[in-house]
């Protein structure tokens, strides 16, 4: 019986003639089957580009034996929009708009990485107030992005309620981001040399009211999902990634920290105002989905703590350095990285002295998080595969760039 959905599955793979289920990369573990000689026929299921729980248009070609996954292969590229190619035809201050649409859940971090790279080329000194505003907006965006992760992670495990509570809090955060930058998602707020505008009065007042309730809401979220017995049974000890696998697959950010490796770009390569802010970096131990949950929930609390420090300690002064209207940085190559909610988001700029970059490369942390899935999925159950996609928190706009 041909399954109409199958035509979607095989057109890309059979056309390339590369997919045969027997061949898995040697490095990736193969689960021997037919232990008692019972040869079961494998079912190749296509967790397709249109699927309620994939975070955008991820297609996971999964070879199932019953419920157990024998071999998983990532087929991406359904959202390849050429951010890097178009970056070569944009001026330096326009790179932020492309980066917003790369990781569209936390746009500020992309803009900040592009601005930092340009500033390294220009060697321009960013005023102190702009540094603090950058850290403030990054942390607000981090809480908003972790709320999206928290909502969709619960949805992948089947819980509907806490998703809506997370969206409720995210609405308040987007109001603040909109009051400061004028847009809910594509802020275009951080430019080379500083930030576009100062903090308006109502944004500060909104932030204060938000901060009064957020701690209670975070406890509520933790109790609603983390405290739930069924969720804990589903998540503890599942999809564990040990230290060496995480490092060899290039994981960064919360996915790496949950295996115990204390690497955080905000502390090891400090940028913006992170030297003056007190925050501690939560670490996990086993690297399973439960640790990823705990590390990210703790990161949200640290982010709220930093937001409080940012508002109280905001210095005076102007928000934009003296930067020429058309930026023509000297020829050179530079790499600047930022701690985005998904990991280390880096921008690799090669400039040839003209007003558009010669090569604009965007290091996407989600690509490496997706890569590790191909390694840990064989052996898991189908239900866990969907949950693990949610736990490593990927954004497809970043993977396909």
């Amino acid at each position: 019986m041909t399954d109409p959905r199958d035509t979607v599955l095989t057109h890309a793979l059979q056309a390339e003639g590369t997919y045969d289920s027997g061949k898995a990369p040697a490095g990736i573990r193969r689960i021997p089957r037919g232990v008692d000689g019972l040869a079961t026929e494998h079912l190749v299921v296509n967790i397709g580009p249109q699927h309620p729980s994939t975070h955008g248009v991820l297609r996971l070609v999964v070879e199932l034996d019953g419920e157990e996954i024998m071999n998983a292969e990532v087929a991406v590229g359904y959202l390849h929009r050429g951010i890097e190619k178009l970056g070569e035809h944009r001026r330096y201050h326009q790179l932020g708009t492309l980066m917003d649409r790369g990781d569209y859940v936390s746009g500020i971090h992309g803009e900040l990485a592009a601005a930092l790279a340009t500033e390294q080329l220009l060697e321009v000194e960013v005023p102190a107030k702009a540094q603090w505003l950058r850290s403030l907006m990054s942390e607000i965006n981090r809480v908003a992005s972790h709320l999206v992760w928290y909502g969709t992670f619960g949805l992948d495990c089947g819980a509907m309620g806490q998703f809506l509570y997370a969206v409720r809090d995210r609405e308040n955060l987007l109001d603040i981001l909109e009051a400061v930058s004028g847009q809910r998602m594509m802020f275009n707020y951080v430019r080379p040399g500083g930030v576009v505008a100062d903090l308006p009065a109502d944004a500060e007042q909104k932030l204060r009211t938000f901060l009064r309730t957020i701690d209670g809401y975070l406890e509520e979220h933790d109790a609603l999902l983390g405290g739930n017995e069924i969720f804990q049974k589903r998540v503890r000890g599942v999809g564990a990634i040990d230290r060496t696998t995480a490092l060899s697959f290039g994981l960064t950010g919360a996915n790496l920290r949950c295996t115990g490796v204390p690497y955080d770009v905000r502390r090891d390569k400090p940028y913006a105002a992170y030297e003056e802010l007190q925050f501690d970096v939560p670490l996990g131990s086993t690297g399973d989905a439960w640790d990823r949950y705990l590390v990210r929930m703790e990161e949200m609390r640290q982010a709220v703590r930093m937001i409080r420090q940012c508002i109280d300690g905001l210095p005076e002064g102007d928000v934009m350095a003296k930067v020429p209207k058309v930026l023509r940085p000297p020829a050179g190559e530079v790499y600047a990285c930022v701690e985005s909610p998904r990991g280390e988001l880096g921008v690799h700029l090669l400039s040839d002295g003209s007003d558009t970059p010669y090569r604009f490369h965007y290091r996407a942390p989600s690509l490496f998080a997706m890569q590790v899935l191909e390694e840990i999925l064989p052996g898991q159950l189908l239900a866990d595969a969907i949950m693990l996609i949610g736990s490593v928190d990927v954004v497809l706009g970043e993977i396909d760039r």
Partner: protein
Amino acid sequence: MSAVLSAILPVLAAVALMLVNGVVLIYMLRKVLGHLHLRLGPMHVGPKGIVQTTADVLKLLSKEDITPNGVDRWMYVLAPVVVFVPSLMAYAAIPFSETLRITRLDTGLLYTFAVLSLVPLGVIMAGWASANKYSLIGALRAAAQQVAYEVPLLLSVIPVVMIVGSLDLGEIVAFQTGVWMGVVPRWFIIPLLPSFAIFLISALCELNQTPFDMSEAESELVAGFATEYSSMKFGLIFLSEFSNSFVISALAVTLFFGGWTLPFVPEEILTPIAPLIFVLKTYIGIFVFMWIRGTLPRVRIDQLMNLGWKWLIPASLAWIMLVGVVVKLTAPGGVS
């Protein structure tokens, strides 16, 4: 009335009750889930969105009825019927009040469970026939789940039958009228709390409701076994899911919450409004199911199997032995 008429009238009443139930329950689900999730649920279609479900049903009626190619034709068309009819037949034995009942069956309980266990047959037919990998996995999950939870469901009900001594639902309710020691109602929920707990868990599995809704898991299997069904065929499956929850909740009320009786209400006020009380109690039960559906995450299929075989069945067997001993000890004087 002539014999034929008196036979047909209750069946028509059952069908009408089921359709009205389906419409009201779908509206209630969207409203309850809405308010659970801090939003309003349907509001614009008619005052407070009351007419929303009729709009949905009418739209489903007028949709194009697709039969995808590569589908096993007859089983594909038959499956929704096999899912719909048993949940319609299950209405037969439910006692709405002393007299108001479709049929007086002295094996009412057994009949209802037998009919309800036909529904997974339709689910498996639907999943297998619609030539879609998601529905196949959903159907096989439904099969494993129903088989694993049919047994504890029946075992949890045996203590009630042991005490009452008959399978007739009316009698079970009659047994629960009156009051103990002046204040405690004689409902079975109080002495037989563990068997109610087991009944609730396995009932949730029977209904494929969260936290055990693996067979139509939204986030994993797109729409589970009903993925390939459009328009009114999907409508039948959707409707039968809700009428199943009405039947199971009605059973729970009859067995454990004293059917249509209220402890302190004198006889003559009770009889005219008995069906109303019964339906009200059933709707409270359904509200609890929806409440659970809105909050809990989904259990993995193998954890579900462990829970079923390793925990629920031994627990219900032990509980039956305990109740048996107690009933035996107090047999001459009946339950004190």
